């Protein structure tokens, strides 16, 4: 039998409910899955199917009500918010649909922010930030404000910010939803390429079948139930 520690993500019987007055809405129902390290996995389903909720729980920015969740073998269900924040700081990168870049920070500062949270030295921050910007092809845009970038460039900045600290897990929620088809394809290729380079596990929520085709594995989800 395989052990939880062998997987980047190991979910066992996970359920999550939203309590709206007297009605309980089941967002995730008895989800069980294992994701190998370095995998590039898509969770596919229509809007409201629970894929984003599942990814948020896996990224430790949301909680679950039942079941077990092991991240790199660690039972994170038993951790408090401070401990979860500590794990997010070191182990988890996020790529949001709306990019969520900080407008008062330029590209360099947005990307380097996670490194500064880790307390790295100025020279380390500079070297590692410029390295990842080079990899996403934005080194000449380092001093620009996010407002001066196109949608595709902004998402590349977000990818750089998610990967700069070399996380073991990257959560990408509809990363191409706001992009045209050509740019979306480039973004997916970039994520996959960098994911392989950094040995990061990517969990991607998408309802775009074409994007899912690029992934190592596709997990379907409908009404909170995994296919």
């Amino acid at each position, binding site marked *: 039998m395989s052990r939880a520690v062998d997987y980047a993500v190991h979910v066992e019987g996970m359920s999550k409910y939203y309590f709206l007055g007297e009605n309980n809405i089941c967002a995730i129902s008895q989800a069980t899955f294992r994701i190998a390290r370095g995998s590039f996995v898509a969770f596919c389903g229509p809007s409201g199917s629970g894929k984003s909720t599942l990814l948020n729980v896996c990224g430790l920015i*949301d909680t679950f009500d039942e079941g077990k969740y092991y991240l790199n073998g660690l039972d994170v269900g038993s951790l408090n918010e401070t401990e979860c924040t500590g794990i*997010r*700081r070191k182990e988890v990168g996020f790529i949001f649909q709306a990019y969520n870049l*900080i*407008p008062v*920070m330029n590209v360099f500062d947005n990307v*380097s922010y*996670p490194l500064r949270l880790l307390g790295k030295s100025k020279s380390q921050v500079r070297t590692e930030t410029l390295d990842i910007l080079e990899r996403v092809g934005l080194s000449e845009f380092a001093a620009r404000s996010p407002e001066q970038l196109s949608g595709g460039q902004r998402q590349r900045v977000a990818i750089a910010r998610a990967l700069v600290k070399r996380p073991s897990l990257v959560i990408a929620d509809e990363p191409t939803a706001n992009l045209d088809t050509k740019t979306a394809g480039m973004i997916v290729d970039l994520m996959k390429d960098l994911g392989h380079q950094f040995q990061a596990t990517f969990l991607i929520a998408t309802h775009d079948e074409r994007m899912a085709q690029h992934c190592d594995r596709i997990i379907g989800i409908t009404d909170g139930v995994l296919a």
Partner: protein
Amino acid sequence: MSALALAARNVLRNRRRSITTILVAAIGCAALLISGGFALYTYEMLADNAARESGHITVADKRFFEDEEETPAQFGIDYPENWIAALEHDDRIKYVLPRLSFSGLISNGDKSLIFSGLGADINAEANVRGDFLKGVNGNINFDKTRDGAPAILIGKELARRLKADVGSRLTLMTKTASGSMNAMDALVSSIVTTGWHEADKRLVLLDIGQAQRLMMTGRISSLSVYLSDAGNVQGIREELLSSGSGRLASRLWSEQAFYYESVKAIYDRIFGLLGFIIALLVLFSVSNTLATSVAERTREIGTFRALGSHPHEIVAQFVHEGMLIGIAGVLTGNLIGLAVASSLPYLGWEMPPPPGRSAGYPLLVSAPVSLYGAIDLLIVILCCVAAWFSSRKAARMPVMEALRHV
């Protein structure tokens, strides 16, 4: 990017709102500086008045401060000239003025009133008291005698009640040091005011030699010691006590300035309450505007939290912004405060007389560095507290709730 640089960019993000917030802090700061400066100036003025009246240190027989004299100079100092010579030898002492206090009746022949007399070196007294002993009709040029009779100065209100004027002949009746009665005819040399209504109703001043003759004594009641620099008054007093005989005691001006203490107590409460209200206004105004900023940036807070920032780090970011707003506010507030403090002497505005006084005083405000430092620190701390207060809830919000915030 340092935390301060990030805070500065966030402050500059919505300039109009930030300027409004900074102005609130600046006006609060200026209001505290001006009201505090006015209170300090009033205290200084009252303290100066009290010190000019009693001297920085009063030296007298111990019993003079503790018991009531039954006859004039009962607890007086014998051979005061020895003490005066010894004290005047000290470079730190500017004046040593002997005083003989007494009371009795003063009469114009038709009407007799109670007076409170002081035998003193009148010209020296006028010199040290300045505005607190001045002639109603100009400067005091006192001669011990006038037309062969002892000369006296009388208070403005006493002169009005006795229908006396300069040159009027009045009779002073008082107890002598031995307890018998004595009287003396005197000519009014000048009519004076101390600025205190009650004092002007009873005040009679005459030369100390004439007063001693009236009371048939060689004693004086007390010595008023005026220092060149009042800063070291406590140290000089201790030296005086250690070098004096055991019979004499001393009191600082502040230990006898009951009016100063009571006005200060009232003003402390009034200006303390005013300051508290202004501080609350600053706190709530800055909190209110920062709360708007926090609400607008809730999604950003969610992003920072998702990236691994702890709530206290988010709060610290807003506290830095509050600190910058506070610093900008106090710099502006200091400029306003200094502009008001430096322009008031040129405007020549007068305050109405405080309770018990017959003369007003100039509307001025002090601007000591200590006051500015304390109020600046208070405003910056208030802005930091306002930022902490406004951001702590959003920083603790569940990450998903913050990210979904619209």
